[in-house]
């Protein structure tokens, strides 16, 4: 067989798989979102967007992403820098830090629920040291800020590691000589981080941010576990359309709106962190 065709042959199975289980459902969903009784229509989009919960769920989703992602970016950069300077025990630390990656998001939500709920660890502790006279219901409609904080904490705990592993790999690719040159030419540790690590890490930052931001727009289980209906997000609204209101056309429209937001943010991130031609390592 001609060797030139071999690469194509090798990627054929995964291509077929993607076509079958991603492209085809995607086409079906799009059809559903745009089709009405009298042919193509934007009616479903008009319906979901004009619903009173849409602005609040969009705002919540964006706010959550805007708070969580920067915290995760800073934390994962700090952790990646620390790990990459370690000699012995590096792998052990990395494994421990990435444990949350192995836990499903619903389980993560439930773990944090066990901490924050009225009979949870936090209340037992506060009661034990006498800080409160009776258990407090932190996750109630009276404490929206605490609900938000709990969700942020759970998301940071759960999903920082995905950025961490990408950044650790990226930092490992930066040749040591650049740091030595920067050190000799007068750069302090902080300057080396800002002037060498960050710019040379741009490709990894792109990947980590795109992945993380997309996941942030899809946030669902953690929010459902901790906030229930107190904190509506786009994904929980999509779920409600599909399974509570049995309106799959509206659910499909919501799914496409989330896709649109993800695509726009991906483009913005790729543009912002673009590495000029010739400036690549």
């Amino acid at each position: 067989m001609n060797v030139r065709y071999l690469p194509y042959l090798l990627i054929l199975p995964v291509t077929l798989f993607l076509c079958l289980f991603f492209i085809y459902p995607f086409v079906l969903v799009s059809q559903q979102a745009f089709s009405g009784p009298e042919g193509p229509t934007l009616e479903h989009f008009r319906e979901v967007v004009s619903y009173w919960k849409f602005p609040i769920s969009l705002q919540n989703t964006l706010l959550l992403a805007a708070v969580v992602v920067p915290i995760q970016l800073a934390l994962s950069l700090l952790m990646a820098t620390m790990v990459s300077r370690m000699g012995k025990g590096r792998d052990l630390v990395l494994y421990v830090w990435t444990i949350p990656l192995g836990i499903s998001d619903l389980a993560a939500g439930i773990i944090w629920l066990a901490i924050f709920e009225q009979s949870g660890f936090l209340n037992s502790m506060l009661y034990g040291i006498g800080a409160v006279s009776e258990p407090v219901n932190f996750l109630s409609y009276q404490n929206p800020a605490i609900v938000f904080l709990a969700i942020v904490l759970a998301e940071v705990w759960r999903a920082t590691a995905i950025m961490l592993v990408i950044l650790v790999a990226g930092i490992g690719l930066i040749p040591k000589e650049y740091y030595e040159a920067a050190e000799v030419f007068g750069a302090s540790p902080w300057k080396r981080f800002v002037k060498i690590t960050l710019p040379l890490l741009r490709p990894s930052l792109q990947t980590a941010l795109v992945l993380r931001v997309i996941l942030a727009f899809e946030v669902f289980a953690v929010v459902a576990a901790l906030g229930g209906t107190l904190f509506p997000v786009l994904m929980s609204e999509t779920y409600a359309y599909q399974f509570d209101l049995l309106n799959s056309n509206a659910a499909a429209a919501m799914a496409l709106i989330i896709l649109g937001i993800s695509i726009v943010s991906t483009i913005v991130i790729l543009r912002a962190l673009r590495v000029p031609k010739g400036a690549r390592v």
Partner: protein
Amino acid sequence: MAQIEIKGVAKQFGSYQALHSINLSISDQEFMVLLGASGCGKTTLLRIVAGLETPTEGEVWIGDRRVDHLPPRDRGIAMVFQNYAVFPHLTVFENIGFGLRMAKVSNDEVKRRVERNAELMHIEQLLARYSGELSGGQRQRVAVARALAMEPDVILMDEPLSNLDALLRLEMRAELKGVLAESKTTAIYVTHDQVEAMSLADRISVMHQGRIVQSATPVEVYRNPAEHFVAGFIGNPPMNFLSAVPEGAGRYRVADKVLDGPNGASEPLVFAIRPEDLTLSNDGFAATVKIVEPLGPHLLATCDVAGTMFRAILDSDMTVKHGDKLTLAPQDGRVRWFDPESQRAVA
């Protein structure tokens, strides 16, 4: 004034002793080359002077300051790295100006110094480019310009030419020598290439197994190697060695000949002579030609003398072939004698 004093510097990596108590003085504006095979500790010593490595023992002084506890940026040094380490995300201009920016030099001054040094290294037309758009030779020039722009007291160079092709290396070597002489900085230059060392150095320190075995001018190192190792390392081809058995009164039997040697030795010595210091004569070592290599300006004949490989450089117009018998006489004053015990030169 930036003389460098290295006092009793030793370096241990785990159980491996990379450097054994090195002492070396380099005077102001001197061009010092550290020469040795890979693993001899030359790069480690350079990195200790740079501050990229901390010595296990000893002191490093630059000018009248002890610097071994200071970070690299406080030592008044600049460095040219083996792989250039030209930052890929910065333009040539910002690369050359990197150190000046770190030192918070004013924009005008950065521009002036970057442009002057770019001109000096003939890369003024490349200032807007990124390193990915440069050839190896151009990157090398950027690395040198970046070091010169700092106007440092000391320039450290770690095999800066080893990644260039042969022709470019020759060209850069000459240029580097001119530029550094002009800049009046003290320089330490690490290389494993003896021709490079010879052509650049004011003084060469030959290193072997973590020790400096000889520090002297290139001619001195070549003519009067202080140790057997140096004699076998320097010169291409290196010196010929034959064992010498004392026959009393400063006379030694070397192969089939009896020669005058150093007085007083009662133990066998090693006789050494450079291939180019042999002449054809009636009175010399009986040599059987094994291999003949015409090298253009001269002819290299590898012979057998008393069972030992022995090379001679002969006139290129000689007709010599395999199996020929030659009589090779050492030129007066060009013979070295080594003590096989201590490896040191006796005379």
